[in-house]
């Protein structure tokens, strides 16, 4: 039995997480994601889950370090400046290969920025953020139903790969209301046993979770090689994207999250006028669905990256197409809390046809 509810984005991912077995959430107030800790504080007792309003973002992420080491599904959420503060802990969690889910409801930056929606944390999410060679799995939903479904899946990916997963939303996704089907959780992967959990050594040898590798001198190198192998496996196995009307397209818009949704309206209008425009929407931003873009480039030579940033996603589009000749990759977008209207994108499309 599924139930349909009108919900706010910031509540949707918490509800999905609880349905998926979330047992621990720690967070710190920051706009525009405050409804998430508020919702969790009310809802946690229904699921026998722990909610802590942490004293700092650093504390919140380090609480997840402990919660995950204890074997429990755990989550934190924040918005851009808060996510910057969490980067230390994220690096440790990635190094210790502990599963957890981190939600970033992105706002305008840099600095304190503003509280409007933005996509300017793309680099931070997909290229590192904290110190050391590591990757998060980064998922970018574009509707609240997708936010609900992918949050559930995020816990499976985290457990399956023993890797932190980031859900990269934005202020619009967090603040908007939409009907959402509250589906019961069903695991999408065969999850490995958690043989690393620290719960006391009764009946077994003591376990250690650590991220310092001094001796032997190549032990950290070995960890890095093993992590790299894991990341390559994830790149091979996990490529989520939506591709539409690309078969005959002479222009493909590449956009993710809420921007892709806005782009769809622009593409629809363009198509009605006979302009052959398609869309590739990466859903996993890391791994980036490069193969889809490369495949599309066999027919389509012009790509337009549309994003609410000065140009971050575009770098992955260009990297995907690196070495392929006769390709044009353009950018449309700004950081700072700007978002496009369908008309903005439509007009940008028109430029290609009016020369």
């Amino acid at each position, binding site marked *: 039995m599924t139930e349909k509810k009108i919900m706010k984005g910031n509540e949707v991912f918490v509800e999905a997480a609880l349905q998926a077995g979330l047992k621990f959430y720690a967070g710190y107030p920051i706009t525009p994601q405050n409804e998430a800790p508020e919702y969790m504080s009310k809802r946690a007792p229904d699921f026998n889950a722990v909610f802590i309003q942490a004293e700092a973002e650093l504390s919140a992420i380090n609480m997840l370090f402990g919660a995950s080491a204890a074997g429990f599904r755990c989550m934190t959420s924040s918005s851009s400046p808060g996510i910057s503060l969490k980067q230390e802990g994220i690096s440790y969690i990635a190094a210790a290969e502990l599963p957890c889910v981190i939600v970033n409801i992105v706002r305008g930056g840099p600095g304190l920025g503003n509280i409007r929606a933005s996509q300017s944390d793309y680099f931070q999410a997909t290229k590192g953020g904290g110190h050391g060679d590591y990757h998060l799995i980064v998922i970018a939903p574009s509707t609240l139903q997708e936010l609900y479904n992918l949050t559930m899946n995020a816990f499976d990916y985290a457990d399956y790969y023993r890797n932190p997963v980031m859900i990269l939303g934005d202020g619009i996704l967090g603040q908007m209301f939409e009907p959402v089907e509250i589906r019961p959780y069903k695991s999408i992967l065969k999850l490995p046993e958690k043989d690393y959990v620290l719960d006391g050594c009764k009946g077994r040898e003591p376990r250690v979770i650590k991220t*310092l590798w001094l001796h032997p001198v190549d032990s950290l190198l070995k960890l890095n090689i093993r992590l790299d192998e894991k990341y390559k496996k994830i790149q091979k196995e996990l490529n989520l994207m939506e591709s539409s009307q690309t078969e005959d397209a002479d222009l493909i818009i590449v956009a993710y999250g809420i921007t892709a949704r806005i782009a769809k309206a622009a593409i629809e209008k363009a198509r009605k006028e006979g302009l052959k425009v398609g869309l590739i929407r990466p859903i996993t931003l890391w791994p980036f669905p490069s193969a889809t873009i490369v495949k599309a480039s066999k027919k389509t030579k012009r790509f337009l990256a549309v994003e609410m940033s000065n140009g971050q996603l575009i770098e992955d589009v260009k990297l995907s197409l690196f070495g392929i000749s006769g390709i044009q990759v353009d950018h449309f977008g700004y950081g700072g809390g700007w978002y496009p209207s369908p008309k903005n994108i439509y007009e940008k499309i028109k430029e290609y046809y009016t020369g």
Partner: protein
Amino acid sequence: MKKPEALKEAQTHYCSGCGHGIVHRLVAEVLDELAIREKTIGTAPVGCAVLLYDYFNCDIIECAHGRPPAVATAMKRLMPDKIIFTYQGDGDLAAIGTTETVHAANRGENFTIIFVNNAVYGMTGGQMAPTTLLSQKTTTSPFGRRSDVEGFPLRVCELLATSEGPTYIERVAVNNIKNIIKAKAAIKKAFQYQLQGKGFTFVEVLSMCPTNWKMSAAESLNFVDKMMEYFPLGVFKDRWNKK
């Protein structure tokens, strides 16, 4: 004298005259005496004791610098029937991790902090700590700590005792037999309170660092006595045993 079961068969990396070995042993003896080793999870700090998982024979999680109280908070909330302790130095607990320490204490989280105060950053080579004494020379206070430039040594027990949150706060030392016996009793009391679910327990241990103090082991024992003039030993809070 028998090695406690809660310690592994290992030779520590600690310098001659260092107090960490004594404090490790006291904690281990308590884990043995209360028969809680198999349900205990300890946290390793960043600092000289970072390798304590090589010495303690129980589950250990090594945390980022200053963050053990946050990690311990989550573990204890999720596993209330387990015993959780953090083992932290003065830089870890009283500088970079002040926030985590104060707020875990203020929430009255039901775990135990063993705070080893040796008035100096040991592992990084003897820099000034928040607990470095006035006029004490370190590699970053080469003229001796000056109150008007580097501020005053931070009294953590006294600070935490201003909160209603903690259950038990005591400062002890390990520079002579008498003090070691008292230190053991304090550590045991802290773990007993945790076992009984009585709340946040905190034991500060004044300890020796002859290497970074640039003293002989014997001189360092006397320096701990000098520390006591600023960091008095005693019970700062004992909610369940009010006199």
